């Protein structure tokens, strides 16, 4: 039997609104909505707990402060860029996993996003490699064919 997360079950059953479903014929009171009598094919999505939402938001704000604060220290142009981007990656992973539910969703969605990011990476890296492959100034020495 597909298991429904306990937090979802408790809140559905504890919620006053749950006893009067908006749409007749599909409620939990008929014993087929959620909980032990779950029917395959029925909608069952994960509900994120409030403490997770607040903790993620707090972490995101803290990381925003960190990424601003770190600019007061000079680690060098490239290191600073790497630090800033690393913090941005951590922040985006938090958003994607928790706010966008990927932690609990089908891994196939994560696969789509990862594949997309890989192709963006290829796109950017190869373009930069290409722009680095030219002499900054064309002089007779470096223009002449070999």
């Amino acid at each position, binding site marked *: *039997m597909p298991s429904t997360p306990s937090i979802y079950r408790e809140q*559905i059953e504890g*919620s006053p*609104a*749950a006893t009067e*479903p*908006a*749409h007749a*014929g*599909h*409620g939990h009171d008929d014993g087929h*909505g959620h909980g*032990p*009598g*779950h*029917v*395959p*094919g*029925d*909608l069952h*999505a994960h*509900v994120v707990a*409030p403490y997770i939402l607040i903790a*993620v*938001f707090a972490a*995101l*704000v803290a990381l*925003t*402060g960190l*990424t*601003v604060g770190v*600019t007061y220290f*000079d680690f*060098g*142009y490239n*290191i*600073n*860029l790497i630090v*800033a*981007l690393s913090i*941005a990656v951590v*922040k*985006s992973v938090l958003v*994607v996993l928790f*706010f966008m539910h990927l932690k609990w*969703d*089908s891994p196939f*969605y994560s696969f789509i*996003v990862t594949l*997309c*990011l890989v*192709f*963006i990476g290829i*796109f*950017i890296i190869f*373009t*930069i490699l290409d*722009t*680095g492959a030219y002499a900054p*100034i064309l002089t007779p020495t470096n223009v002449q064919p070999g």
Partner: protein
Amino acid sequence: MNHASVDSPVPEPALYGPDTGHEDHAHSPHLAHHFDTMEQQYDSGKLGMWVFLATELLMFGGLFCAYSVYRANHPEVFLYAHSYLSTMWGAINTTVLLASSLTMAWAVRCSQLNQQKALVALLLATLVGGAGFMCIKALEYNHKFEIDLGPGRYNQYNVDYKGNEEFPGMTNSEGMKALLEQEKAFAPHQLPIVAPASQPSRAGLYFDPNSTGADKALITPRYSADAALSESQIPQTSDHIGAKKPGPESESVDEEHDKGIQFVDMNSNLSRQRVNTFFGIYYCMTGLHGIHVIVGMSLIFWIMWRAATSAQRVWMPPLPVLAVGGYMIFIWAISHVTGFLYVGIPLLIVGLLWMVLRFVTAKRSGPVTEGEFSDAYFVPVDLVGLYWHLVDLIWIFLFPLLYLIHGKVGS
């Protein structure tokens, strides 16, 4: 299996008398005909949304690529140009967007738990967050326009050279070319650190991004280290502006340089010239992001309308009119461009009248229509939420890449 024990007692409703409710259950009013189950419908919708979000990422990927290429080749231009942006406002805007992401994620939770009032309230809070973001964006853009760092030809480096004493009678492109020729022949002892008073139109060239007031009138030679660069530090190929090989002398740089801004082996005046290219990238990236914020806000409003009861729908339709009118008046208040006032005031009046009309004509009695979403059907809230989080996600990268450029070039 559990489901067998649930389903098998009622194999055919027709054979066993009146419907027990299972027939309704199998055909949820929200289930489209081309789906077998609600779960399949939900998963298909989410898959479609994630594929769409992937294409959105690819679209922004093009802009990130342009950014990367330009920054890799001209780090000093980014280092110089980014100091025109206010880190504080950028950080505030990041937090505003993160907060609206929190309310959106919470709204999805409420829709799953049948918390209808909280759902509408949180969607409204998300809209307020989006509006706050757009207002701060307007403040920032307005500041750029005020110091002649507008988009495209409105950038100070594309100003009309016809009126410029230095390039008399030249068209814009000729003036730009002449300016570049001048830059090519650059030598530090010739560089006017303080702009002559006779060139007000080029005053911005020496505008100090770190100064607090009197932007155009007061011209401070903040980057005095430019003059301190000796002849030997200037590379023989002065038009090679990529700062790839800093000399050992470049370490001794004026301490006064805020935020570690340094120009090592390049013609520093050139990076001032190239400021317009940085702002071209800036306007494209933040502009496309801003369009996504507006689209996201429209979608959230649509979702809020669908989530609302008939009683809550009374005050909703005039909201966009009021919001646009208020935004126009806000832009007028910061930019003093009267055109915005002419658009904003009528919109505000129409919106207020409409609102009064809505309340006067609202039905006081009769059945109240429920909102559309419940634990049985919340896909639209979920998918719009995903879109809004993507907007947040893009900004998470835009903020450090545009506002937080730091360090010594070449290190």
